[in-house]
């Protein structure tokens, strides 16, 4: 028999299909509404018309839009995302080589934010009104208010240039060289994770404070449970809404990584995206946005699944 969780996941996966289909139409249509011509960007202002025409024909830009779309989707479902107008490399290969980088960066941001947020949120809530709480609240406010590109440049100037502790630009895969990889990911991870850390800290603090006031905790205490166990009960419940926020924030981290990749010169998908927009490399742009969307959808499904697990009300009886 299918459990409720399984049924739920299957339903969500099926729902993801029309979402992705809609996204593909939207991307395809929207980027073609933007004025600009990939052939002109590629060849420059002094390209002769015959050369422009040849390139347009070669890129298939002369076909009517619906035909272009059907061609694109037919190839895409077979795993062929086309070839970049600019570099002539397969889009899927370009993305495959950049995706791990972006995921490592996003994961670094995720790790940094939780490392900061969970202790900060817990300490803030348990020391309400004291100086530790003040620090937590202050961080919560600053973290969401500071634009991350600006924070990135400041960190880069301080730790990269003035103190010269960490490299300023570039990327080494942590798989190839763990130490160097971490050195390269540290500053981008902090920059990317700060805003999320701040959001999660604030959220965790307020949820936990609310939970600690709940009456069921008194019932637990009356059973003679230690204060630590009581706290653990409260924390688990406080995490239910926090997990949703963490999941949504993970999606935002993916988006934020576009900017961070630019500031720290990390060759991830964000740079592919920005270059593709600048050069009107439609085919690359479609592929990259589609992959971002897929990840966003996937993360949401995972989060909902986790929510299911944490909240017994949703789980119910089999």
């Amino acid at each position, binding site marked *: 028999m299918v459990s409720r969780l399984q049924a739920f996941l299957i339903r969500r996966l099926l729902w993801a299909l029309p979402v992705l289909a809609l996204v593909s139409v939207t991307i395809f249509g929207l980027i073609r509404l933007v004025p600009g011509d990939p052939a002109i960007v590629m060849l420059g202002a002094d390209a002769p*018309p015959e050369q422009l025409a040849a390139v347009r024909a070669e890129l298939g830009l002369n076909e009517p839009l619906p035909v272009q779309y059907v061609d694109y989707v037919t190839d895409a479902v077979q795993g062929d995302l086309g070839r970049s107008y600019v570099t002539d490399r397969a889009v899927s290969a370009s993305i495959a080589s950049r995706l791990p980088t972006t995921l490592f960066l996003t994961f670094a941001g995720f790790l940094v934010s939780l490392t900061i947020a969970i202790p900060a949120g817990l300490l803030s809530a348990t020391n309400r009104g004291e100086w530790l709480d003040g620090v937590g609240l202050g961080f919560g406010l600053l973290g969401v208010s500071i634009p991350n590109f600006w924070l990135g440049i400041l960190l880069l100037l301080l730790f990269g240039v003035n103190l010269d502790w960490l490299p300023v630009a570039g990327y080494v895969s942590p798989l190839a060289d763990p130490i160097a990889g971490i050195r390269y990911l540290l500053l981008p991870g902090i920059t990317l994770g700060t805003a999320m850390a701040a959001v999660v800290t604030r959220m965790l603090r307020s949820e936990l404070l609310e939970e600690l006031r709940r009456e069921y905790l008194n019932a637990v205490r009356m059973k003679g449970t230690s204060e630590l166990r009581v706290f653990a009960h409260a924390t688990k419940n406080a995490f239910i809404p926090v997990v949703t926020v963490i999941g949504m924030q993970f999606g935002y981290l993916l988006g934020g990584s576009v900017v961070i990749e630019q500031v720290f*010169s990390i060759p991830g998908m964000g740079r592919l995206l920005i270059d593709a927009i600048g050069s009107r490399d439609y085919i690359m742009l479609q592929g990259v946005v589609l992959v971002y969307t897929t990840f966003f959808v996937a993360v949401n499904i995972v989060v909902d699944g986790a929510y299911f697990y944490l909240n017994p009300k949703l789980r119910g009886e089999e």
Partner: protein
Amino acid sequence: MQGEDTATGRRTFLSAVGGAAAAAMAGCTGGDGTPTEDTDVPSATESASTPEGGPQSGGTLRVGFESELTGLDPHQTESVVSWVVVFNVYETLLTFEEGAPAGRLATDWEIGDDGRTYTFTLTEDARFHPPVDRGMTAEDVVYSFERMNQEAAMGADLSAVESVEATGEYEVTFTLAETFAPFFSFLGRVPWVVVPEEAVEEQGGELGDFQEPVGTGPFRFEAYEPGEQLTLAVFEEYRDEDAPLLDAVEITPIPDADSRVAALRADDVDMVRGVSGSDAGTLRDDDETKLSRQQGTEWGQVHINCSQPPWDEPAVRRAVAHAIDRKAIVEAAVSGYGQAAWQPYAEDSIWHYDLGDSRRTHDPERAREILDEAGNPLEGETLTIKTNSRYGLMETTADLLVAQLSEAGIDAETETLEWATQLSDFVGGNFGAMAFSVPFKIDPDRHYYGFIHPDGAQYNHYGEDQPDAERMYELLERGRSETDEMTRVETYSEFEQLVNKHCPWISVARADGISGLRSNVYGVQPWLLPYTRYWTMWTEE
């Protein structure tokens, strides 16, 4: 370039009968820091002090590029950054030294009396890198030119060529269908390089397939991880024993301008391209860094669509030409790393024409008078200046121009577009005026023909109804078909006078190309174009 080749090249050049060779003698921009009209231009520090020991060999140069490479097939890649790599791995027949053509793969040349046949003697010492590992011959040149001339890959530049033939093992002859003066200098264009057929075939054979370069240049291709790093290594068997000095060059894209400068200051790289005027001061004042400056790599203009009202009225264009304060724009846009300019070529170029007192200088009163005399055609009008936020020179030009126009009583506003959109509008003629800039071109034909002549299809905005249009078309035609240098100079002088008179565009500035260097990096040789010769560079340990 390499001592002897240059000497031969120059000698041959001076004795060449055919005028086309001379015609190609493009503007000497004084890239090595020749004094210019502007006295308050900040001085560049490069080559201020070379250490006593002289050049040292060995070491790796780490370079930060302003964008990712767009591919490595030399015959099908269009970006400046890719061309820098091509320029160091491959070789063209010609190059330029001190503004004059000099040999690279060619050691000698002869131009037929009819100006249509060009015969080049090739060096016998050029070798292709491994795995091809053999000497280069005339057949390779023929193959390469046939390859680059397919699918209109080089546009109209090669269309004048009727045939390319190997007339000896080390001799190649080009025959043109008609005289085309700029052709000779085009032979120094970066993508017109020689490739070995067997390597191309092995990598797929099609245009665009040749992504693992095998050339004859001073550096050979070693490794490339798209987006991350490209490594060039010294080609030990390069025919010039003194070059290159470096063991390797590592190229990393650092697209963000602030991060690029930070990476240089943190010693993560030894050289960065594309330093903005505002960052240049920081690098110049820091003891650990310095600048290398190449004058006039960009020509900034207010580009005008003379077929769109109110810009079709010459008086409007003349008034704007007087309202604009070029010097203020150069100060603001590139922190003085450039010159106020009334034409693309600097004073020391043969293509520069001295306009004297006739040139339209900053004079808001004169602008008002011109408009009054013409019956105030701008009454109730607001001019729109299109621009973009990607290129500082264009953005600042537009912003300041609007302020300067209001001083002359002209209403104007900017319209800031995304660069690709502006480029599209430019080519499609969808604008009245836009702040624009183009890379420096060696031959004036390349700068002027497309902007004015009706055959330059998409820019044909200077219509026949405009004053002296026929005469300007005629001059441009003569400029490209005439091969005698003096006649060409006279032709373009008259053309410049007409440009100054009718303002089909308004020249604003020549902006410099600035690179940042660690202070232990030496040997940068700025030349006419913004492609660095890494083989002359060295670092002091």
